[in-house]
């Protein structure tokens, strides 16, 4: 105990003697710990966000896309085939008792002009049900209605990013815009949703009545004038998702005249699966980032080893003298291990502060959510101590096993 206390004192004194050198050595650990903290923070932020989306969207959404998944799981043109139709979407809620709503969606890119400004964005042709199911609301103006869909009225709902680029700070509601040269009236602005967990801007879009989008903007698909890119379905409850999926599959196979041996010409997935997959991939991503960051921790450890080797060399006479007055192998070993651990733990502390600061900066600048948990901080402290002791061991051992005579005689 007295050895440990004095070792800490000796370590601080030795490190204070070479302030610049100690600081530079610590820098490696500082950077390592800071980057581990920051990447873990970004990773857990993404995961937490996905979990929140799952909770907020409700887990009873189902997506049907045209095209099939092969048995091997290889995607065969999902979303691009023309096998799903608006009439499928109409029939699903009527025929499937477990389904509450079904909303057909068509999609396409378009250039949009307002006054002197223009902007390329994605156009979604939808029905009012879509907004309710996606939990989209209108911040200014109002939604379009079923009668706008029936009448194929030229009305548009704009995402925040589109408004920013076309109108700046001006109020766009009631203003004319041209989408692919077709004049539309802006009836509303969607409440911003920010970035998705995968980093997409969820506000860079325009919603049009599906009928208008098909006739005036996106165009008919020559293979099937009734084709849609997606059908979004809401089951009556989370418990009825499986039933709904079965009913939909049976109905669509029947409507598409598929034989028993034929594969589905559509794919059906529920949001739970999709989010689970996203969550898994974001976890893997976070893990890989943290792994890369920990490489720099190892590099920092090598820096410590290097400096400790130099320090042992420089203090050879001191070691010899300590041995002459009775220091045992363990005493010298402890002294140098404590010194290495002091370096790395101090570096770890600074690294934690910087890592937390970096996480805050990332969430401010990039708009990503970051979460710094106590677990990550503890882990960082633990690892930096481990690195110090691990990489300090070899130099410390070298010091401890010096021959006292040779050490005393060392110049």
């Amino acid at each position, binding site marked *: 105990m*007295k*050895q440990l206390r*004095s070792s800490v004192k000796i370590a601080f*004194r*030795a490190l204070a*003697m070479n302030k610049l050198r100690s600081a530079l050595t610590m820098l490696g650990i500082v950077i390592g710990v800071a980057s581990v903290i920051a990447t873990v923070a970004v990773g857990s932020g993404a995961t937490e966000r996905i979990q929140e989306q799952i909770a907020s969207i409700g887990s009873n959404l189902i997506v049907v896309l045209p095209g099939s998944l092969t048995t091997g799981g290889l995607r065969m043109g999902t979303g691009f085939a023309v096998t799903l139709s608006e009439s499928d979407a109409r029939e699903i809620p009527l025929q499937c008792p477990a389904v509450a709503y079904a909303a057909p969606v068509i999609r396409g890119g378009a250039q949009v002009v307002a006054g002197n400004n223009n902007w390329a964005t994605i156009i979604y042709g939808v029905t009012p049900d879509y907004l309710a199911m996606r939990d989209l609301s209108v911040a200014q103006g109002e939604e379009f209605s079923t009668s706008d869909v029936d009448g194929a009225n030229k009305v548009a709902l704009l995402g925040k990013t589109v408004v920013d680029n076309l109108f700046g700070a001006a109020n766009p509601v009631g203003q004319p815009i041209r989408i692919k040269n077709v004049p539309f009236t802006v009836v509303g602005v969607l409440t911003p949703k920010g970035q998705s967990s995968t980093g997409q801007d969820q506000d860079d879009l325009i919603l049009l009545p599906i009928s208008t989008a098909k006739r005036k903007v996106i165009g008919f698909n020559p293979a099937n004038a009734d084709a849609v890119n997606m059908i979004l379905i809401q089951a009556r409850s989370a418990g009825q998702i499986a039933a709904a999926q079965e009913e939909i599959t049976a109905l669509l196979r029947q409507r598409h005249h598929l034989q028993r041996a034929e594969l589905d010409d559509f794919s059906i997935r529920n949001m739970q699966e999709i989010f689970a997959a996203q969550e898994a991939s974001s976890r893997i991503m976070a893990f890989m980032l943290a792994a890369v960051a920990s490489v720099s921790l190892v590099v920092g450890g090598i820096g410590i080893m290097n400096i400790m080797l130099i320090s042992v060399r420089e203090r050879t*006479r*001191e070691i010899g*003298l*300590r*041995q*002459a*007055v*009775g*220091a*045992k*192998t*363990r*005493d010298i070993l402890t002294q140098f291990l404590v010194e290495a651990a002091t370096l790395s733990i101090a570096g770890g502390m600074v690294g934690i502060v910087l890592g937390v600061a970096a996480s805050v900066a990332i969430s401010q600048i990039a708009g990503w959510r970051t979460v710094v948990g106590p677990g990550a901080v503890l882990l960082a402290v633990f690892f930096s101590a481990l690195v110090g002791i691990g990489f300090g061991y070899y130099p410390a051992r070298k010091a401890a096993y010096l021959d*006292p*005579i040779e050490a*005393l005689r060392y110049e």
Partner: protein
Amino acid sequence: MPPLIDVRNLTKTYSLGEVTVRALQGVTLTIERGSFVAVMGPSGSGKSTFMNLVGCLDRPTSGRYFLDGVAVESLDRDRLADIRNRKIGFIFQTFNLLPRMTALENVELPLLYKSGETPNAAALARRALVSVGLSGRERSLPSQLSGGQQQRVAIARALINQPEILLADEPTGQLDSRTGNEILEIFVRLNRESGITIVLVTHSDEIAAYAERIIGFRDGRVVSDTPVKLAALRIGPAGIGAAAEAEARP
């Protein structure tokens, strides 16, 4: 009671590649408790090698060494470290103080490695400094002390664990003769008052005269071993007084 130091046929051979240096070639001698011995001899005759073996800093190539009846030549590093800590005090020509520590901390150093807690270590160390005539300089760094003062700190450090033997290899080699004599007077006093055994290497007859026995080395062998009896050989004010006292002893 066995002699404090009992070496038998001690040899030490260094091999430097093809050349082998036989620094000690069979040294046999005993040193009794409480004696004050000077070791002399030309440069390279093996004096320091002998001192390192006696001090348990090094191990002989062959031969036996009984320290206080214990065969120490076969003990492991940590056992030897413990013996150095408890039984032996070293004083070096170059003082070997730790430069970043105060005088007091330097003196306390052996206590750090002593097994068991030492209450009021600082008070002990302060007393040791006073006993070598260095009060009031506890907080000085070695660089702020003169050579003689540094050697006094080193002596205080050697004494802190109350060892039985003080080994001094040319302790006055870097000091002027007046300071050297002052240091020697401390040794004489310690030997007299505390009965501590002192083995001292020196090139100076004047210094050797403080001892009661002079062992002569040449080419790794003991070539002479003479008791110092004549008061006339004891030079210096303390020396003469000490010699007179010695005469008075039975």
